[in-house]
């Protein structure tokens, strides 16, 4: 008998994989609208998200709860206003009043000057000034807070002449204690533009591949495809790989914009990033492909994609700080590729992380990808039953 018949068919054929790949590329090229969307969506999202978040709000309403009125406090408050970020609108009458102002959103900040501030300042005890910020929208407060911390060193420079000179150099003469209220972890804009790489890829990649098999089914071409001697894995890879290329185009667009429109720093290695990107894109493509083997039609496929997309943006740390989430949500988040990718991309771009730091986040991504592919292969039906 020679080779058993089953063996002949179970071997992966590069040629058949290549046939599917070429077909997909040609079809993609023909489908202008989809192609335009794939490049257009990231640009649009980036501009919308990026500029909304990048806005650097000034003159934020601020209340002061001051237990004393001294030259020092006056100078400090003047410097606060001069920074441009703060507008002193109210004198709070009590702590409760201040808390209410903040809770209602009447003011964004409350600056509390303790009663013995001047005395302790002169004694060199570095008294604390408490600044409470409504950080529900971290982007709105982060720059102001940054400016505030800086003020501690310079605001009182003139007042601390003469005998108080010894308080000046080195450490600031008093301490600004910042409490970000309602949102413990203030994301900055730099955090978000790299994060957009991940969200945009998740959205477009999952949707595109989730349509891959359902489209064949709806157009009636599935019957022909199934009648051909092609293995599921050849179809899957042939349909997935063109989108890796698309994903790279999207990333390039976003990175260029991140660099030149938003000035996001890129400290780490772009090579490491590009390797990680393949894994991340492939993970999303394989979950999309899995959806397409389950969904009966394109509408269902879209719904499944959104079902996946929502937790991805909500639980990955893109929208809300990861550490602020309850344990169960964190556990869910750990499963999602976007969670790990966000840590990796922020780590690489902002902190300059290398392989050693990236690996602990990379393997869960790879595991997810393999799991999704396995599921897709199990779900792939080779007959019309």
């Amino acid at each position, binding site marked *: 008998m020679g080779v058993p*018949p*089953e063996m*002949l*068919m179970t071997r992966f*054929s590069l*040629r*058949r994989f*290549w*046939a599917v790949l*070429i*077909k997909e590329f*040609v*079809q993609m090229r*023909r*489908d202008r609208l989809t192609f335009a969307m794939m490049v257009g969506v990231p640009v649009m999202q980036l501009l919308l998200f990026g500029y909304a978040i990048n806005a650097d709000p000034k003159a934020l309403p601020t209340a002061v709860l001051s237990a004393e009125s001294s030259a020092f406090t006056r100078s400090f408050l003047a410097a606060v206003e001069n920074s441009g970020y703060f507008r002193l609108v109210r004198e709070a009458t009590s702590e409760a009043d201040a808390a209410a102002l903040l809770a209602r959103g009447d003011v964004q900040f409350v600056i509390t000057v303790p009663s013995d501030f001047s005395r302790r300042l002169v004694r060199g005890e570095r008294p604390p000034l408490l600044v409470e910020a409504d950080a529900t929208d971290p982007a709105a407060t982060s720059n102001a807070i940054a400016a505030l911390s800086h003020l501690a060193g310079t605001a009182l420079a003139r007042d601390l002449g003469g005998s108080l000179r010894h308080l000046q150099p080195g450490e600031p003469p008093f301490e600004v204690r910042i409490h970000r209220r309602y949102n413990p972890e203030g994301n900055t804009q730099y955090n978000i533009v790299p994060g957009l790489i991940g969200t945009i890829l998740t959205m477009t990649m999952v949707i595109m591949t989730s349509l891959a098999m359902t489209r064949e089914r709806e*157009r*009636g*071409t*599935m*019957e*022909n495809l*199934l*009648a*051909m*001697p*092609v293995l599921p894995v050849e179809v899957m890879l042939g349909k997935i790989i063109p989108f890796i290329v698309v994903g790279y185009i999207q990333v390039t667009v976003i990175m260029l914009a991140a660099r030149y429109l938003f000035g996001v720093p890129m400290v780490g290695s772009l090579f490491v990033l590009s390797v990680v990107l393949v894994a991340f894109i492939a993970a999303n493509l394989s979950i999309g492909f899995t959806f397409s083997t389950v969904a009966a039609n394109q509408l269902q496929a879209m719904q499944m994609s959104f079902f996946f997309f929502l937790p991805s943006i909500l639980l990955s740390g893109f929208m809300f700080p990861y550490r602020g989430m309850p344990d169960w949500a964190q556990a869910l988040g750990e499963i999602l590729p976007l969670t790990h990718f966000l840590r990796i991309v922020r780590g690489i771009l902002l902190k300059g992380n290398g392989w050693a730091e990236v690996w602990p986040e990379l393997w869960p991504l790879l595991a997810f990808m393999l799991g999704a592919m396995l599921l897709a292969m199990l779900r792939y039906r080779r*007959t*019309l*039953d």
Partner: protein
Amino acid sequence: MNPDLVIDVSGLSKSFGGRPVVRDVAIQVRRGEICGFLGPNGSGKTTTIRMLCGLLTPDAGEGTCLGYDIRREAPLIKREVGYMTQKFSLYEDLSIRENLDFVARMYAVPNRDGEVDRTLEQLGLVGRQHQLAGALSGGWKQRLALAACILHKPRLLLLDEPTAGVDPKARREFWDQIHRLAADGLTVLVSTHYMDEAERCHAIAYIAYGRLLVRGTVDSVLQDSNIATWLVKAPDPAALARQLEGRPGIDMVVAFGTVLHVSGLDPEALDRAIGPWRDDPQLQWSPAEPSLEDVFIALMSRTRDELQ
């Protein structure tokens, strides 16, 4: 196992959602034979063909296709079968040539460019090779579909209504083509609703309500059916038809202009049934050669009565 039988299956059954669609069907087709597969809409032709090439798993029944077991060796069958689906199922957003290139790669056709050129030539598609398949008219789509399923030189063609909606001239060319291929040793199972096409087949199989009712050559089917047909010319054929229809012994009444074809599967019963009208001077009775169509319709109506 008879090595001469390219298709040899028996007991094939399939139901969808508990509704039997194909029941206990047996088909044998010899090498180089063109076998016509006939039957009314929804009788289970497409379902049977899909089971033959591994696209559907039969609920019961077994057999071989090209010597391979239809249950266990579907992947091997797929390599050597050209299956033309009833509904056009190539890629409408690819050109004719791109579609053929895709198919050729899938089957690992050696000398791909040459083979694609040759097939385009063979089916007169050269001039249109760069047109998108979606922009072709129905007849040209059929041609492309045929090209796609003979490109890899299969040993068996399964054609599901390949000429539906194709004009008479193109239909004739299509059949000339199929006869040439069969002459080269290719075996063909082709479903159709056209009687003239059935008459061009070496053998036919007729299926209704999921059951295979007859099979054999056209002549043997006509003979075995034992059907008798009378022609009757009447001044008011519609009224006469109403009177005759449904009488025991009369299986079918069909009007052709002012002439009615009255057929029955039992000639004596038929004679008894029409007796009361035989002597009516306004009617002219004459015996006729039954046609395939008469046989099928009569068979179908009897099967329907039996099932009820």
